[in-house]
């Protein structure tokens, strides 16, 4: 239980607060419209459907305000940087920005559905009142029009077309109705193109369709401009509805019952969303400015197995370990930005990315680079970033367990290099005394460059007599008989036959229980940070092991789990 609080407590707290605000807004506005005296006559026409439409509207205002914030990645990086004092648990919450964005989106979808259904009922009942289907009071209220001394309550004024089509006509000729339909349509298209299947397979469809949010917000801001939800205004002398509701014929004729006056409420949605809209605009502007900045190529290297290494230099570019950048190459596609983890350390005077052939864009990039003459500059490249992830915390832990699976090993190139630089310079920022590195992959194909890095580190550590600092284990999860035989025959040699490294390759998946036991035994009083960049299934396994082997006793070993995600 204690471990659950450590690992998930703050997230759950934030979710409870968010949900609490939603519920509060819903109930508050529901009661405001359902009990308020100024809406007595409106309720007479609409019943509780009025409150059922307005309450989700309030929740929608709140959530539409929130939804733009988690995707302002530069703003989040800024917050992350300024939270250096507030502990890693706070900063870890910022990793979950996309999950929060999706959660808020689900709430928007749900509330839109409730809001829309309630308004369908409202429009139908307004229409019926206007047709005189209900009681005398409803008909009298609906007959009020916008003239010099009367104001309407029922927004449906037309009666001379087919009664069944009046609601449709009404919706498409009022600002609220038209904007409502358009933005709901935009929302539906956004949601269907954001389903996981589409997103993972055709990112471009998801990305371009998602820009319909511009239409969504534009329509949202004007949605209330027509002010068609009306409440009773104070008149002089006052119109007491309890007394006057049964004396319709006397309205305007006796002093106690002047003709009731109605007016719509001031539109409020823009007040909620204008702030985040401006922030998001700044975010996109910043991305554009970054794109315009000059990026020059220091080196372009083709690594084995179709891996392209780019070493780039950009004025004023400062990075931390394990961060990623977005690259854009107008020669390939004007609008696509693709994320890549940086593989260089902050101590170096350039930044590098290793790009593997993984789709249309990367294939074209590798093609272009292969056809460049020696020493030439590459095509124009826009770089946005750097953006932070959990790897920045790696130096805070005395002991670190780094697990990289497949392509997930990339951020650890940056981390290992940086740790080594810091160690050589005896940088006080480095609290790490021991690193356990686990590299899991099916085959080392496409990661030969990483093997080279490990060889260099290994050699340097041997020279300084610091062999103990880094313990690494490579697990090849795909192997066959001939591999096994090859290894068996060469099992006596000093270096591993597959990688050429001193530490031997293991086959199959790691036995995590044994590994955690060993780490715990060798570091009985430390706080151990576990960092994973890899598949979700492995994240679940490691999270469980961290919880299992952590001791709530602060003097004993404690494991904290951090996950990278893209």
């Amino acid at each position, binding site marked *: 239980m204690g471990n659950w609080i450590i690992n998930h407590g703050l997230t759950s707290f934030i979710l409870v607060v968010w949900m609490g605000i939603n519920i509060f807004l819903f109930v508050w506005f529901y009661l405001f419209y359902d009990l308020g005296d100024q809406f007595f006559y409106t309720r007479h026409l609409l019943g509780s459907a009025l409150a059922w439409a307005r309450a989700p509207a309030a929740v929608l205002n709140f959530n539409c305000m929130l939804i733009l914030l988690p995707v302002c990645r530069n703003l989040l990086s800024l917050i992350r940087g300024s939270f250096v004092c507030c502990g890693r648990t706070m900063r870890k919450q910022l990793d979950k920005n996309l999950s929060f964005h999706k959660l808020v989106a689900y709430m928007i979808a749900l509330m839109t559905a409730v809001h829309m259904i309630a308004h369908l009922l409202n429009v139908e009942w307004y229409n019926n009142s206007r047709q005189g289907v209900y009681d005398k009071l409803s008909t009298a209220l609906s007959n009020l029009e916008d003239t010099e001394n009367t104001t309407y309550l029922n927004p449906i004024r037309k009666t001379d077309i087919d009664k069944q089509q009046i609601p449709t006509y009404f919706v498409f000729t009022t600002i609220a109705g038209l904007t409502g339909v358009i933005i709901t349509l935009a929302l*539906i298209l956004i949601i269907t193109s954001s389903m996981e299947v589409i997103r993972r397979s055709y990112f471009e469809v998801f990305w371009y369709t998602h820009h319909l949010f511009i239409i969504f917000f534009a329509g949202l801001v004007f949605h209330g401009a027509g002010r068609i939800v009306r409440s009773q205004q104070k008149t002089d002398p006052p119109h007491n509805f309890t007394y006057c509701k049964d004396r319709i014929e006397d309205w305007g004729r006796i002093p106690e019952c002047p003709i009731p006056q109605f007016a719509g409420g001031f539109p409020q949605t823009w007040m909620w969303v204008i702030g985040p809209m401006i922030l998001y605009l700044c975010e996109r502007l910043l991305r554009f400015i970054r794109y315009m900045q000059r990026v020059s190529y220091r080196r372009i290297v083709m690594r084995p197995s179709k891996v392209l290494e780019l070493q780039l230099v950009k004025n004023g570019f400062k990075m931390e370990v394990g961060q990623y950048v977005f690259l854009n190459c107008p020669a390939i596609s004007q609008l696509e930005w693709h994320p890549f983890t940086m593989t260089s350390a902050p101590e170096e005077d350039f930044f590098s990315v290793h790009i593997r052939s993984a789709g249309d864009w990367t294939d074209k990039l590798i093609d272009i680079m292969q056809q460049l003459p020696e020493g030439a500059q590459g095509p124009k490249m826009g770089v946005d970033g750097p953006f932070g992830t959990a790897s920045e915390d790696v130096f805070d832990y005395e002991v670190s367990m780094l697990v990289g699976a497949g392509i997930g090993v990339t951020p650890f190139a940056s981390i290992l290099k940086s740790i080594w630089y810091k160690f050589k310079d005896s940088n006080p920022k480095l609290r790490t005394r021991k690193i356990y590195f686990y590299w899991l992959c099916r085959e080392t194909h496409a990661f030969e460059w990483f093997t080279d890095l490990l060889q260099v580190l290994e050699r340097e550590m041997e020279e300084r007599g610091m062999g103990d600092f880094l313990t690494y284990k490579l697990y090849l999860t795909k192997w066959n008989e001939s591999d096994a035989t090859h290894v068996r025959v060469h099992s006596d040699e000093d270096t591993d036959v597959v990688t050429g490294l001193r530490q031997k390759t293991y086959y199959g998946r790691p036995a995590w229980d044994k590994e955690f036991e060993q780490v715990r035994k060798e570091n009985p009083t430390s706080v151990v940070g576990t960092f994973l960049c890899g598949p979700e299934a492995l994240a679940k396994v490691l999270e469980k092991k961290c919880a299992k082997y952590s001791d709530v006793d602060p003097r004993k070993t404690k494991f904290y789990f951090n996950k990278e995600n893209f």
Partner: protein
Amino acid sequence: MGKIEWAMWANEQALASGLILLTGGIVGVAGQFRGWQFAAYAVAAGVFVCLLEYPRSKRSKGTSVERSGQYCFTVCVKAFGPLTRNYYFRAFLHAAICVPGGFMLATVLGCVCLGIASLIYLVAAIRGEHWEPILPVKEFRKPVADSIKNPPQNPPPRPPADMRRKQADLERAAYDNPFSVTANE
């Protein structure tokens, strides 16, 4: 955007439209709206569209992800052969189904969404896509080789002499031999 299979997005859009049509229809019928007959039609149409669109098609390239429990729906949809396989037919079907939804406010949104799904299906059909059922793959078991049935008569051959000596030196033998196994004793 080269490799997209438009039918995948059309499928998501059509399924969502079916649900929206269904919801609008239920509201229209339950609230006894004017033109509730159109709402009743929308309920039936919505259910039909959902049933038709629930089973995902197999992708021509890449792994297909099934929706949970879609196997029975796949079988039903497959039974209609070319009618469900061809996306031109599906596009026109959806366009036809959506029209009556436009006559009543409660179902207008479902109508427009289904119309959009129909357009995306048309694009998919023009690109030459078609619906393929996702069926479980039968695994072939290789017939058991004869040699397995007869256990070996002789013990396994001993490893060569130098390897045996090494094992004894390192004292890491997996088992203890009850008697020495070196050749010259």
